[in-house]
């Protein structure tokens, strides 16, 4: 206890601070904490501080090593694909494209987003192959993706990443992680462990069902005649605030040709990208943005489930791509195609994958941004694009 009298004396001394300087203990009086009561109180303070620090550590995931965090997801990608500094952790092999979206105005009745008003907005896009290997050889069955960044005036941009599969193979972040781990090649054999894959599929009937639908899809000859699907559901919100459940797709204007499955491009590891670059150089490539309107009971929180046939569709406009460039110099490289970058007028549904994708993309983006200085040239080089898609 501090003798109150002494304090009074110090207070009243006009030179208080200076004159009491040498009378003051340097730290605190040992006597303050020798009484049992004070010791208990000091212990209580320590316990409170420790609890707050513990709660902070818990929130950060440090106390729960089995929790699926962004770091664990990144570790799974690294184990599956190796380390490729500076590249996206998934959909690592890609090219940048630019062009525009010309809205038909038909989506205005469903969404107040500025991007749907009749007119043109610039687009910065990216075509890529699924998987974290930036130098993988193009193959017909590899999942293809189209990512778009639509930039209407006013800064309310819209980013979307779509795949050429009808449904997603998993419906949760945990499912994605377990699939990634189960299908990772065993270092000893160079192949995924069949027992692990079997166990995963046994635990995930939704994936078995989805993979069957994915296998049945029509694989076209290239990016330019592929249909890309949003997979996740969203909500369009109109000017009056009324929501509409939607999924969207980009459907090629180019005539669809099945993959010839012939090694016509034998020797060209980048044949899908090179074909696309050559086609764009020849003529702008176009896709219609088709919005499918869901019924109230259509599944919105499970991307493995297709919506029934015959749902109403509207043609929201046309995406035109008239220029390609290598990722090494392209405008898509420094962009995270986060599916939750949405204008007001488009909102996420209750699909948990949307939040998971946003979180994982953000961490991947942060990691590769920090590795930018050690990044190797991309598989599809600037020279290759300049040569019109010839390796």
């Amino acid at each position: 206890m501090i003798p109150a009298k002494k304090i009074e004396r110090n207070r009243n001394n006009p030179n208080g601070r200076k004159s009491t300087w040498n009378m003051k203990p340097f730290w605190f009086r040992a006597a303050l904490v020798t009484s049992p009561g004070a010791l208990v109180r000091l212990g209580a303070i320590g316990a409170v501080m420790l609890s707050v620090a513990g709660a902070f550590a818990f929130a950060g995931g440090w106390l729960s090593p089995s929790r699926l965090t962004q770091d664990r997801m990144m570790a799974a990608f690294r184990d599956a694909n190796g380390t490729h500094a500076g590249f996206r952790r998934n959909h690592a092999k890609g090219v940048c494209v630019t062009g525009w979206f010309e809205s038909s105005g038909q989506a205005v009745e469903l969404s107040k987003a500025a991007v749907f008003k009749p007119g043109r907005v610039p687009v910065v896009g990216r075509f890529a192959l699924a998987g974290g290997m930036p130098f993988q050889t193009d193959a017909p069955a590899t999942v293809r993706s189209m990512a778009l960044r639509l930039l209407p005036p006013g800064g309310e941009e819209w980013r979307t990443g779509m795949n050429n599969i009808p449904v997603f193979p998993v419906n949760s972040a945990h499912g994605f992680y377990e699939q990634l781990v189960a299908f990772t090649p065993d270092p000893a054999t160079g192949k995924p462990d069949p027992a692990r894959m079997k166990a995963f599929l046994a635990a995930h009937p939704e994936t078995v069902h989805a993979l069957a639908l994915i296998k049945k899809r029509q694989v076209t000859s290239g990016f330019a005649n592929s249909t890309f699907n949003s997979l996740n559901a969203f909500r369009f919100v109109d000017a009056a605030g009324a929501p509409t459940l939607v999924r969207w797709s980009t459907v090629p204007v180019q005539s669809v040709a099945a993959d010839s499955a012939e090694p016509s491009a034998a020797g060209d590891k980048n044949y899908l990208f090179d074909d696309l670059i050559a086609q764009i150089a020849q003529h702008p490539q176009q896709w219609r943005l088709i919005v499918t309107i869901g019924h109230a009971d259509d599944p919105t929180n499970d991307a493995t489930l297709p919506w029934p046939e015959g749902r109403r569709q509207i043609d929201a406009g046309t995406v035109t791509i008239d220029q390609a460039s290598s990722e090494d110099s392209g405008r898509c490289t420094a962009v995270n195609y986060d599916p939750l970058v949405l204008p007001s007028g488009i909102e996420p549904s209750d699909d948990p994958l949307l939040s998971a994708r946003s979180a994982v993309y953000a961490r991947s983006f942060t990691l590769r941004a920090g590795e930018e200085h050690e990044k190797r040239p991309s598989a599809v080089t600037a020279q290759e694009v300049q040569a019109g898609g010839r390796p």
Partner: protein
Amino acid sequence: MITQARFPAASRLLHWMMAPMIVAMLFIGVGMAASVSARYDLLVSIHRPLGVAIFVLCVVRIVNRFINPPPELPDTLPFLQRFAAKASHIVLYALMLIMPLVGWGMLSAARYPIVLYGPLRLPPILPHDLTLYAWLRDLHTILAYLLFATFLAHFGAALFHGLIRRDGVFGSMASWR
């Protein structure tokens, strides 16, 4: 009981308004950086406008501090504790001000839209640059840990004043009258 001058009402109001905001911000921040769950999107959508609110309130608070200076610490406070009190407050103010700016800057460098609410967005304040983003993103984390450590020290010191020293310093801020 020792009479210790209280903080002016405006200062107490600002302190107690911002305290839960900053603590919530730290927990939201560390939580969302680890999360892949459905909470991630919700946490991010709180984190951004809350950071802006803290920044605005912090500017108000600095102005208020000049208008309404805080009471002197008791003379009995030993030199090291006095120094720790002054230094930790400078660090707290600096971080309250810098953290939102680093956050705003890093989102700008990454060209993420900085959504406040609905159509309301902040403009970017830095060029679109991956390396700059990576640097600011790391800085944001480091400063967040420093802010949490300083908050914890501040909280512990307040309890120490209130329960051990009982010198009126705790009551000078924690009083509702």
